[in-house]
């Protein structure tokens, strides 16, 4: 059986050859379909997921059943990475929003590797800081920026996460992520279509003009670029 390649996951790609040699034998590769819930709030983390393609969204679920996005994870990151520091439970719901291929590793095996490798522990610490920084930025963004610029930021980030310009996302999902009604997303998408920034039909959104989207996005997109996050500098240069 061929050993899954790590290079599509940018986080694994930052690891040294030595650290990778510890992780690679324990990796499994599996396709995961859209809508699969990987973790529920309070659930113990049993696997760590490294997306090679596709996207996971992390949402806080309120008592009323409302969902509030806290972060998204694509091939630049991993889900459940902090499990390497010992047994952990998930704080958020993690759902696969864009189907893709994922490398998985059993939590216990990953914890063993983290105990043996300083490089892996450093990767966990840095990526946890990145998620923390993003969650803070998204909280501020949700509080002060208008729905139109948040939608643009969200589309750009999602495209970056999956490394493509076609996003198989429904307007219902986008509405949930932005915390607005579907009609609001429909009208905002119409506005962006008129500007030639996107094309939307039958649950498939295509980014046609990134520059226009970047112009219409709030500053949070630029702030959350990996190269602009100070905690990523050490990882990115490795």
């Amino acid at each position, binding site marked *: 059986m061929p050993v899954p390649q790590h290079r599509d996951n940018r986080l694994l790609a930052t690891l040294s050859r030595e650290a990778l040699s510890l992780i690679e034998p324990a990796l499994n590769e599996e396709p995961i379909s859209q809508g699969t819930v990987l973790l529920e709030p309070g659930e113990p983390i049993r696997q760590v997921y490294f997306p090679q393609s596709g996207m996971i969204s992390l949402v806080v679920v309120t008592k009323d059943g409302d969902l509030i996005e806290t972060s998204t994870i694509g091939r630049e990151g991993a889900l459940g990475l902090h499990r390497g520091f010992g047994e952990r439970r998930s704080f958020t719901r993690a759902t696969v929003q864009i189907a893709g291929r994922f490398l998985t590793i059993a939590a216990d095996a990953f914890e063993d590797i983290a105990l043996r490798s300083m490089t892996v522990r450093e990767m966990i610490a840095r990526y946890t800081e990145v998620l923390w920084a993003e969650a803070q930025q998204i909280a501020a963004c949700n509080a*002060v*920026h*208008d*729905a*139109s610029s948040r939608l643009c930021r969200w589309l750009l980030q999602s495209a970056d996460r999956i490394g493509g310009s076609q996003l198989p996302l429904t*307007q219902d999902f986008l509405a949930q992520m932005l915390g*607005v*009604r*579907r*009609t*609001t997303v*429909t*009208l*905002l998408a*119409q*506005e962006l279509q*008129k500007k030639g920034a996107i094309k939307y039909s039958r649950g498939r959104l295509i980014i046609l003009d990134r520059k226009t989207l970047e112009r219409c996005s709030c500053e949070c997109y630029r702030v959350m670029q990996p190269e602009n996050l100070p905690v990523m500098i050490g990882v990115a240069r490795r």
Partner: protein
Amino acid sequence: MPLYYFNLKDVQGTHVDPDGTLLRDDSAALDHARQVAQELMQHREARTRSWRLQACDADRRALFELLFATLDHTMNALPPALRHDVETTSARTAGLSDAISNIRTTLHQIRGTLAKSERSPYLAALDGERVEP
């Protein structure tokens, strides 16, 4: 449940709701329109006061229009007379946008008529609707 469409009218023209939403009745449509308008204007109230949300029935006949300025809670602290002035100005700006949009349509129609008289092909659309000469 009946189907309602909600079109956004801003300075660029009308953004047509292609899908519509099933709602209990006209009263629920009004509530929905208010919430959508507030979501569209939140954190950019000053720029969007002249925008309107038009609600239409299943046959796309207009039922009512909401002027964003009338829903702008950031003006709640203003003296009533000043708020009234802002709302009036916003309504006039909206009227001007409609007039500009109508002129644009008329110009397309005139060009279409001229092209037709010269037996040249001419095709134009505004807000997703074909403009007939």
